[in-house]
């Protein structure tokens, strides 16, 4: 069914990428699965469960753009413990009705049984045809909780008590009202180690209306989260101060306003002169004198730290600091260099490089 793991390489639109850089698995890489999983049991089970999954398990997958619709045949349904308790109750009620040959009691028992049968259908229907868009999660730093964004499409019928969770994250509940448009829901993820982390399957479930049955569906989101290394202690890269002194500027030289120029795509939003935009003078970018300073090289070999991870942390901190100062910076690492530049895309590139350090993805 899904044995041929062909992943779409279609990227979202460039500006979406700039704002919320999604990471997608970029190729059929057999090593990734085991490398990214953290539970040893699952590593052991993966060949078997993988086979089972491909053979029997019904999993909904998202389209390359992240859309999915829960198909009628992809929904599992089983009684909850309340359902089992209710079945016991019905059995007792039936015994009482039969023993006392009491027809109103029979009728009550059968109406409740009919209600339970009806609940199977209604619970299933509460999920069936639900359309949603997996927006993915913005990159986070290791140790910080990530947030996965799912947008659920409202329909003609309300869908109360929909529960969303990744197999190892906290579940969230929402009542999806009737209407049009989408409802965006954030799912908080556990803090994760650096790297491109697979999130596993999204489990969408519901127990509405009676709580007697639980219908659920697995959704293979295929939207891994990029976890940057945890930023370490602040340190001064070689040349950081020197370069700035050379320019004869103060430490906060980049605060000096140097003038405006027309907006060019790629300029940072924080440097756009919004006040002039509000006065209908078009988009302009504020120029600072500090930006003319010479590029700063952040070198792997100069970064403090005894092991790989602490060096990566230190470099992450340095990237963040340099970015905050608005000074062009480049990255030198054993796996490759990134030429000095500035801006969110560059920042993301550098951090991504650090996040994937030691991986084939880098």
């Amino acid at each position, binding site marked *: 069914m899904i044995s041929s793991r062909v992943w779409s390489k279609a990227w979202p639109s460039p500006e979406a990428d700039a704002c919320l850089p999604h990471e997608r698995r970029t190729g059929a890489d057999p090593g990734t699965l085991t490398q990214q999983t953290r539970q040893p049991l699952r590593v052991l089970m993966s060949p078997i469960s993988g086979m089972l999954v491909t053979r029997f398990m019904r999993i909904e997958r998202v389209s390359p753009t992240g859309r999915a619709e829960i198909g009628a045949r992809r929904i599992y349904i089983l009684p909850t413990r*309340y359902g089992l*308790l*209710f079945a016991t*109750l019905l059995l*007792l*009620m039936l015994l*009482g*009705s*039969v*023993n*006392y*040959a*009491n*027809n*109103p*009691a*029979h*009728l*009550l*028992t*059968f*109406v*409740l*049984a*009919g*209600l339970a*049968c*009806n609940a199977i*259908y*209604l619970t299933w*229907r509460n999920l069936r045809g639900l359309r949603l868009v997996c927006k993915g999660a913005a990159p986070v730093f290791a140790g910080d909780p990530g947030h996965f964004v799912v947008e659920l499409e*409202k329909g*003609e019928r*309300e869908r*109360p*008590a929909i*529960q969303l*969770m990744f*197999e190892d994250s*906290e*579940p*969230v*509940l*929402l*009542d999806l*009202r*009737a*209407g*049009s*448009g*989408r409802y965006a829901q954030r799912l908080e993820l556990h803090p994760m180690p650096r790297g491109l982390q697979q999130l596993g399957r999204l*489990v969408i*479930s519901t*127990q*509405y*209306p*009676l*709580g007697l049955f*639980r219908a*659920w569906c697995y959704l293979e989101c295929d939207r891994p989260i990029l976890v940057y290394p945890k930023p370490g202690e602040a340190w001064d890269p070689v040349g950081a101060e020197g370069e700035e002194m050379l320019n004869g500027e103060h430490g906060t030289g980049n605060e000096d306003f140097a003038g405006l120029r027309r907006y060019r795509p790629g300029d940072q939003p924080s440097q756009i002169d919004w006040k002039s935009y509000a006065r209908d003078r078009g988009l302009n970018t504020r120029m600072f004198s500090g930006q003319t300073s010479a590029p700063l090289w952040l070198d792997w070999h100069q970064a403090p730290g005894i092991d790989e991870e602490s060096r990566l942390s230190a470099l992450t901190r340095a990237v963040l600091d340099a970015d905050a100062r608005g000074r062009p910076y480049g990255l030198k690492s054993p796996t490759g260099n990134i030429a000095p530049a500035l801006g969110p895309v560059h920042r993301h590139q550098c951090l991504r490089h650090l996040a994937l350090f030691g991986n084939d993805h880098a």
Partner: protein
Amino acid sequence: MIMRDALAGLPVPQGLLTALLLLLGALVAPHVANLSPLILAFFYSAMLWRLIAQRRPEIMPGRWLLLLLMIGALALVVFTTNVTDGRLGGTALLTVMLGLKLLELRERRDIHVTIFLGFFLVLTQFLYDQSMWLAAYLFGGVMALVSIQVGLNRINIEPRPQIRNTLVMIAGALPLALVVFLLFPRLHSPLWGISGVGASTGIGQDMTLGDIGSLSRSNEIAFRVRFDDKTPEPAQRYWRGPVLWHTDGTRWSAGEASAFSPAPDVLTGPGIDYEITLEPSGSNWLFGLDLVTKTPPNSRLDSNFALISNHKVSKRQVYRVTSDPDYRLLDISPSERRQALQLPPRISPRVRQLVTGWLSDTDPTQPLQLVHRALDYYHREPFVYTLSPGELAGDPIEQFLFETRRGFCEHYAGSFALLMRLAGIPSRVVVGYQGGEQNPHAEHWVIRQSDAHAWTEVWLPQLGWWRVDPTAAVAPERIEQGIDVGLSENSDRVVFHVDRNGLAGALWRNAAWFADAVDFGWHHWVVGFTAERQKTLLESFGLRDLKGIGLAITLLIGSALAITLVYLIAQIPRTKTQDPLPALWQRLLHKLQRAGVQAPPWHGPDTICTTAIAAYPDASEQLLAINRMYVQMRYGKNQDRQQVKALRKRVDQLRLKHRTDA
């Protein structure tokens, strides 16, 4: 895989909990008639305690206190209730346990369990009372319970759509419930012992003067009858009960049991088929029209042709009988003749004298003449048919015949039988019901306790046992119309049913009859749906002799059909509800036009808004808000019911007034 349930961790909605507590209180209430007051007091105290704890959570009992309370509750059940009666003991236990559960109600899980206990509580109500009114009340309660359960399983609680959804859900459950109800096998005997119900209303074993008179004051229903095709004449509607042979002057009783079984001589045709729904009476008497020719199962005819059930009628019972009104009972055994001529030890000379006078007047070979003579006496003398005959002192028969002359049917039947015996004509008293009233909204007849009656049977050589109703000689209307209890109560004479004038009276009577028709339907189709009725129903569908696996397969197929039906109905695409936004916009335009603002159809919302503000600057804020909301919903990304509601409110509240220049 462990499935976490986020709902379980959410706090309990307090409004829902309060509603549940009050609802359970209402569901326990009908047990007032059944349970010991102490048990009920325990439950309601617990409920009240929990209700107060809604405001002040610190008074919730701790674990040790709960344990103590539980021991106390068990002791209460043991000491107040006869626990050997499984039904009563079980109900009492369930009620106190429900009370205890309320006191430890904290999480959603507890509410689930409490709702389930509530369902069971409803079931226990039916074990005591199966009336339609209670059933309707409890059905409402079940609906409310389900609706609370639905509320428990969602996050935002909206009562109105929730109740509507619950109704739809229950409607969807009904087809399956009905199919299973009709096809589920019914047992003839219970799984374990049931102790009898001590209800006793209606006709007893014997007749003492005044018995039936007091019964006749009751408007309670004795039984209902549905005739298959033929309805007998009023004069034939004598519902036979116990036959009394022995008298001591004031009291009539059954006397010795007779081993003699006479064969009736039925004259004509197929007879009258009918079905009786008998109210619980606590006795074994079933009633049938004179003369029963085909008995229902589990019953027999005694030597007097009275229909007797093998079990006490402790709950409503439905049975089918065939009767033939044209019959002769010619046989009489010597012992019966002896019994039918038995006289009380003391008979007043005045009574003897009366009979001797008649004997000398009539032809001894024509005993019928004497019967007519006696009836004539009742007719000619100023006898009064009344519910309040007054006290009879001394020899009651003499007093009644010569002095008070006020009596009810038992006085007439008793004295007449005695007179016949004195004249040497074998006679006996029959107790039962006479008459009945047809429900104008349904096919069935209702026989009330006020229709209880006593009449006489005399044995005449060529005619055999011959029914003579001396009451008819005094008050022939009794046989045709029946007694109006309400009016007879305070009246000197018995008042008979006549069509009362006045719209209110007619409406009231009509409503009462309609309620009776619904009630009868409930009893006919639900309460009295026995194994026999089930068999007849299945046979009418061509399913004969269904048992065991056959019935199980029919049940499965029927259920599958019912489920498919509901599923198909649910799949029918609903006609798209009209988009509420254009309708709202039209409403606004209408309002503006009435206020004189030109809004041609080619103007967009912004233009119209600007025009309107120019005309009514005071309303600019409201108009801008409406415009903003409309545009956002119409052209924006999101729109939900709440927003539409808010916009509707704004449009409705919009007031356009011209500025009055000061």
